[in-house]
């Protein structure tokens, strides 16, 4: 129950950013449309598939844990971690590509663009940045769960921690499901 409440607070936290996005996009619809063309839709789509699959693997890891299948659960948790890392690596490449083009907050290149585009990229960095931070935290937490699974303090009878971690990971995935169309598909 506590984990669900925590996720509600996270919804409000990200919600503030989505609110800003919707207001700014309403004001600068054309600029947002143009700026989104700068995004690499292939990398964005790969990332979406990666995260969705990782949600699947962590759900499976809980199901196998309930059946007492320790090794399967460990493999699935590991798969989730690797996909989380893959997501972050791809994100790293996306960010560096933009930074090399001179597009980052307060850069002269950015400030020369139109106001809507400045806002778009500001939102891009803040929202994907905070999301990425949550992915990183998730990867660390799943790693801890992996450790506990190996030590069998997470087992067939006591797996609440793993379930809560799964909930958190699903949440991180869902936020990305909203971020993806708003930044990659509106062009």
């Amino acid at each position, binding site marked *: 129950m506590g984990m669900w*409440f925590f996720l509600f*607070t996270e919804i*409000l936290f990200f919600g*503030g950013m989505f*609110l*800003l996005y919707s*207001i*700014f996009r309403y004001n600068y619809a054309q600029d947002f449309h143009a700026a989104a063309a700068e995004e690499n839709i292939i990398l964005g789509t790969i990332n979406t598939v990666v995260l969705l699959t990782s949600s699947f693997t962590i759900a499976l890891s809980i199901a196998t844990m309930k059946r007492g299948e320790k090794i399967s659960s460990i493999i699935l948790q590991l798969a989730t971690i690797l996909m989380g890392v893959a997501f972050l690596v791809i994100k790293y490449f996306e960010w560096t590509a933009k930074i090399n083009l001179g597009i980052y907050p*307060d850069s002269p290149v950015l400030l020369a663009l139109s106001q809507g585009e400045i806002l778009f990229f*500001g939102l891009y960095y803040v929202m994907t940045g905070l999301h990425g931070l949550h992915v990183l935290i998730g990867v660390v937490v799943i790693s801890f769960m992996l450790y506990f699974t190996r030590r069998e303090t997470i087992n067939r009878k006591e797996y609440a921690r793993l379930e809560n971690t799964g909930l958190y990971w699903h949440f991180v995935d869902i936020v990305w499901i909203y971020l993806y169309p708003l930044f990659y598909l509106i062009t």
Partner: protein
Amino acid sequence: MTLRNEIPEVAGFYERTGRYRWLIAEWMMSTDHKRIGVMYLMALLSFFSVGVVLGFIIRLSLLSPGWLVGQQGYNEFFTLHGVIQIFLFIIPGIPVAFGNIFLPILIGTQDVAFPKINRLSWWLYVAGAALVLLSIFIKGRPPDTGWTFYAPYSVQTPANVSIAVMGVFVLGFSSILTGLNFVTTIHRMRAPGMGWFRMPAFPWTLYATGWVQMLATPVLAITLLFIFLGRFFGVGFFDPTKGGDPILYEHLFWMYSHPAVYIMVLPAMGIISEIVPVFSRRSLFGYTAICMSALGIAIVGYAVWGHHMFTSGMSDTARVVFSFVTFLVAVPSGVKIFNWVSTLYKGSIAVDAPLLFALSFIFLFSIGGLTGLIIGALATNLHLHGTYFIVGHFHYVMFGGAGFSIIAALHFWFPKITGRMYNEKFAKIGWLNLFVGFNILYFSMFVLGFQGMPRRYFDYPPQYHTGHVISTMGSWFLAIGLIIIFANLVRSIFKGEKAPANPWGGKTLEWTIPSPLPRENFQEIPIITRRPYSYEEEAK
């Protein structure tokens, strides 16, 4: 109840556990909700005192135009006064102190749902408070933006805003976790037989408050993060030259800060609901309405934030809607006031200090609430926004409301927490000074505001001089009152008469266990068979 007259010998939950060598480690590492609550209480009262001194200096400076504190200094003083009183004292306030100590006991359980997270909340509170206070002492000037940190100034000012804002962010996280803990505790851990409508009023208000803490605070968190990102990375969501909008800041900020005032006042109302039945020996009138109105205030309170921004350029339609909903939120508050007064009616009244402060709450909060309606109305708001009328209004509801409720709770639960009785005579003398001083200090602000004196101004033209002198003199009486009250309480910790388990004849669960509270709340988890405050049933 056999424990009614038992005088305890043990030191209760203060007794050393022997797990740690140093006393401070034993307390800082404790997951016992009673110890955490007491530590919070000590911290809160210390920060409150600092805030009072700052306020005292502000009033001193306003005694005469152009002396004591200059322009820059004045801005820093009122910013710090606001930030400390609001974020370090009154928002954590009742939930972390009395909520922590008494919630599990009131619902008949041994601790909160997540004791380790409770401890984390406490550590985060200390860390956040440290960061905020650090902003005063590190290189650079203290924040001068007002506690509201309005953009664009908060993004541009060279003052130590970033670290203060970081501190508030951390404090917010502490608040979210406390809310989460309490809501889960109330859902999952009530004693057998305690259905929702057998739960006393104070836990009900903690429940409503917990939801507000969870859902409103994250909005503040992200808003403050944007200030931080604006200062460090030039992210310009509130900067018009980068396409942003400063009014967006106001919206986001007040989307949290209005519900925040209900975090301040709902638990305070819960405490009044606990005290009034005991000292009138009557069941709480309209118990169900009291509980539902707590939820009503919490829910409707989310929809009124625009009333802080009536002069910021909103459309007429938006302003009418916000004004209407603002009037609506006064209704459940009024329900509570009527129910408390009805509880007193034909009761057997004992005017001991807890009741005296509770009655003061009813009086002062009503004035605050009614003046809130005056500024909630659009036409009057245009004249009164940004004036001393507002300052008077919120001090009446926050200090006269939540502040007096905290002092009432300190006296009401003093025997339970310390195992001793305070001195009733000095409590009453202190009350008189505080009450008289309070009204002189703050009522004059309504007059000043009506005459047009702006708030947050370090100086003023001569026509406001008299009002300011009267107000400042009120602050002196108030300060004397506070000193007497706290000196009495502190002295009574050491020299007070030992207290029995139930000195007031209360009917809720905390009075069934010894004073001071024992380490383990209940030897046996109680089974609840009736509604709370069953005075009439016993009289039959």
